[in-house]
């Protein structure tokens, strides 16, 4: 029984693998085509952390190249061949504060801690809205369920500019919901800096929607 089942999966597995390879090939070519566009969006923005602005290395700061060890551990007989698991732990659950595991938001918070980036991301679920309700930078919770249909104050997720993560009823708000971290909307030539735009014409703070007249808030919230 077990053997039969295994064979079944194996057969299916081959077909699946072919399909996966095809999808991967399409994705890789898309990445090659769009990659340069995305990179162009990042170049010169605050997310361009390259020391030498002309060497083109702008992705590695967030997308660490796969580079398993070539070293032995002198204190341990096991020679590691694997890589570290980043931003993932499937055993966690709990409040807004605790369940960031496996989310892209952790990636943001590994730099937005007051050091590499001075704006500190806390996500401790308190003091929502900041002083006078104006500053959401520390306070809008992430990894929070988008309770469309439950909360009448939220718009249809299909009708918002911001990007919600996850499927159907389990859509969540992450940092990248409101912030386009790749900044590919940049219109580098001939832009003047305004109150809501940086030097490159990006909407300030990498926002997907302008904060002018609270646009970014009203994208999701019916007020």
């Amino acid at each position: 029984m077990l053997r039969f089942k295994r064979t079944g999966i194996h057969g299916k597995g081959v077909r699946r693998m072919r399909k996966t390879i095809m999808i991967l090939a399409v994705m890789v070519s898309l990445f090659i085509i769009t990659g340069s566009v995305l990179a162009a969006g990042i170049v010169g923005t605050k997310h361009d952390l390259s020391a030498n602005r002309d060497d083109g290395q702008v992705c590695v700061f967030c997308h660490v190249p796969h580079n398993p060890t070539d070293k032995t551990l002198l204190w341990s007989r096991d020679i590691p061949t694997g890589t570290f698991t980043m931003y993932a732990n499937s055993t966690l659950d709990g409040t807004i504060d605790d369940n960031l595991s496996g989310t892209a938001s952790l990636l943001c918070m590994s730099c937005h801690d007051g050091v590499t980036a001075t704006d500190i991301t806390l996500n401790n679920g308190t003091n929502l809205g900041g002083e006078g309700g104006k500053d959401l930078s520390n306070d809008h919770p992430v990894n929070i369920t988008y309770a469309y249909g439950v909360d009448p104050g939220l718009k249809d997720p299909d009708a918002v500019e911001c990007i919600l993560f996850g499927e159907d009823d389990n859509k969540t708000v992450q940092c990248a919901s409101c912030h386009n971290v790749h900044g590919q909307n940049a219109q580098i030539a001939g832009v003047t800096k305004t109150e809501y735009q940086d030097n490159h014409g990006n909407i300030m703070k990498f926002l997907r929607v302008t904060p002018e007249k609270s646009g970014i808030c009203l994208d999701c919230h019916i007020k």
Partner: protein
Amino acid sequence: MQRNVKRLSLIILGFILLALGSIPLTTFAANDTEELVWPLPPDKPRVRFVKTLQSEDDYASGFIKWFRNVILGADSAENRLDRPFSVAVNSEGRIYVTDNGKAPCVLVFDENAKKPTVWRFGDGGRFALVSPIDVTINEPAKLVYVSDSILKKVAAFTFDGEFKFLLDPTVEFGNPTGLAYDAQRDLLYVVDTKNHDVKIFDGSGAYLRTIGERGSTEGTFNFPSMVAIDSQGNLYIADSMNFRIQVFDSQGSFIHSIGSIGDGPGHFSRLKGIALDGDDNIYAVDTSFNNFQIFNSEGQLLMWVGNGGRDRGQFMLPSGIWIDEQDKIYVVDRFNSRLQIFQYIAYPDES
């Protein structure tokens, strides 16, 4: 008002407890006593888990803790880590932890006080912190230096948390972060992350010189963050966005660098805290790997400790690290809102 009621009830309870006689102190780690060491047998253990610290509850009696958590509600302890960043320990065993969370301050875990307790400073008074990052100790002058990345200042406080002075106010920081003090040479190192250099002062706050500038070659930096010194006064700088530790002698001359970009052992992705043990082994915290890696002074990888999670020996975006004179290792476990303490086990015959 509510706080006063809480305080009053605690005081009354305190008196009741005093009357009842001593109740044994319990620690956070007491409910999980299985020994945890790295590496696993049959290899010799090199690092042992000691305990976790989080709030004044860690020193409270079981009854007070129960009363706070069950009657007043969880997390009711006033002095509790929220988003801790870094740590330093003085010779009296006082543990200073910077916290740039919802109530920025330095929390002090007074381990060796007659009555161990937790208190805070820098949350008001003559110098109110906004984004405290690193903390370090000047033992001879009994000072604690604290960097603040939003105020762009480095302040000196007494061991009791009284504000003393700011470093030379004519020096403008882009973003002061990592701190290290060399008592033998009276040198205070301040990493300026946004200016990609390291500014050097004496212990009284007078500016001496700067090393480095932005770049990726030897002796230049790209978003450097934390810093430590070894027994010889050599300087170890987390050159975070060049994905390496750069080592300089006390004159500021480049010696060598350790590590490179990658997601495997011996590499770095989001390098932050650095510390050295009594054998001058180098401990490097990587925020995105949720671990610290240990290298010998030649830069060879010895071992690493930790992965992502909430258990003992697991981390969620760890940041600062400190090793005291007893080789106790203190690691700030930022998104788990706690400090984890380990013990380095030395084998003097080995070397």
